[in-house]
């Protein structure tokens, strides 16, 4: 594609195509979109973040990421669609325009580019990072068990061959550390939304403890509203709740760390599950999935904008 209008959002794309897409989007929208490289992956790929901003300095911000688990292709594809949606709706959609007139939005489409590349070229079922583990023939760490929040507690594995291996220490993965450094240095992120697939769930902290988050009631009611709005488009049914109550105990996860950093609106999505395809969700479901998820994202972003803290 020569521009982001002719980019085919109804298909899955390789990492290089996504990198090209990001550059095209920046070039086409220089006043709204910029690209920040927040670090490098283990295999030296750039960790690109798109910044959507209408100006100001260190405005309150919303973070969205997709693709921390490499094989969850619907997430990177949805992230690409979200990026385009942000530029097309700014100035036309009053709610998004109000958000972007007050806040910045950061979008990391491929949090785990090494793993994503590996799914395209070697092993479609790869989930983790691609960093070798000392003393083991098994490669990679689960980047969603590598955060410094209940790190190493039950709900992650100490076995490097496990899909949920937490790594040798918290933030051992450069892909995780880059976000940690960015969030800390920014200091004004108000919502953090990390997107996975597939189970049709919207969850909030905590994963490592049954102790409710201080803001449990507000997070719960906002999640309920978000999944109601999501379902209004195609009737897709989501469950919601704290992570430990909704799925299982999971330690060292992204949103527990972000919440402990003071980011109240910390959520994680599990996108569509048709009950037939798992991670091989057909490409014709990319746009419907992204469209319905967008409604939930807007609900969370709008609430964040209207409820400063």
């Amino acid at each position: 594609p020569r521009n982001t209008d002719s980019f085919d959002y109804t298909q899955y794309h390789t990492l290089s195509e996504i990198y090209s897409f990001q550059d095209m989007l920046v070039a086409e929208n220089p006043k709204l979109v910029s690209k920040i490289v927040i670090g490098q992956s283990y295999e030296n790929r750039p960790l690109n973040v798109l910044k959507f901003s209408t100006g100001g300095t260190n405005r309150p911000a919303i973070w969205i990421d997709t693709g921390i688990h490499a094989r969850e292709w619907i997430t990177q594809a949805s992230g690409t669609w979200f990026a385009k949606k942000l530029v097309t709706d700014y100035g036309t959609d009053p709610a998004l325009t109000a958000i972007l007139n007050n806040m910045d939005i950061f979008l990391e489409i491929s949090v785990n580019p090494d793993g994503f590349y590996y799914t395209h070229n070697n092993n479609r079922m790869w989930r983790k990072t691609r960093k070798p583990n000392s003393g083991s023939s098994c490669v990679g760490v689960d980047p969603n068990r590598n955060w410094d929040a209940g790190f190493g507690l039950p709900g992650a594995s100490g076995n490097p061959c496990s899909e949920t291996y937490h790594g040798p220490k918290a933030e051992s993965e450069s892909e995780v550390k880059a976000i940690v450094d960015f969030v800390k240095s920014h200091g004004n992120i108000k919502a953090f939304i990390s997107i996975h697939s597939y189970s049709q769930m919207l969850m909030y902290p905590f994963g490592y403890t049954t102790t409710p988050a201080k803001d449990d009631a507000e997070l719960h009611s906002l999640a309920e509203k978000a999944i109601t709005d999501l379902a209004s488009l195609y009737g897709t049914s989501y469950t919601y709740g704290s992570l430990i109550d909704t799925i299982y105990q999971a330690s060292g996860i992204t949103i527990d760390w972000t919440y402990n950093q003071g980011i109240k609106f910390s959520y994680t999505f599990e996108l569509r599950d048709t009950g037939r395809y798992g991670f091989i969700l057909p490409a014709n479901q990319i746009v419907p999935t992204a469209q319905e998820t967008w409604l939930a994202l807007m609900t969370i972003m709008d609430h964040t904008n209207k409820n400063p803290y």
Partner: protein
Amino acid sequence: KESFEGHQVLRIIPKDDIQLSLIKELEDMIHFEVDFWKEVTRVNTPVDVRVPFHSLQSVKIYLETQGIEYSIMIEDLQVMLDEEQKEMMSVARAPE
């Protein structure tokens, strides 16, 4: 490229807490090399497991002897991956 020929994805629905723990035990049977696509959560919530061809018979026998019901969600994973790849290639070639 790694082949997933003959791999199946089984959808298992645990009916009680005993079945839940029996399915969890599958995770510890390393020689089966199963891959939980959807982890064990609670009773009546589906668990999806990718089972390599070499373990299929053993895993199915394990489930059946424990009285755990399952269905085959994906008959042959590689067939689906081939279709996915074919679609991507055809789209990539379209401009040519």
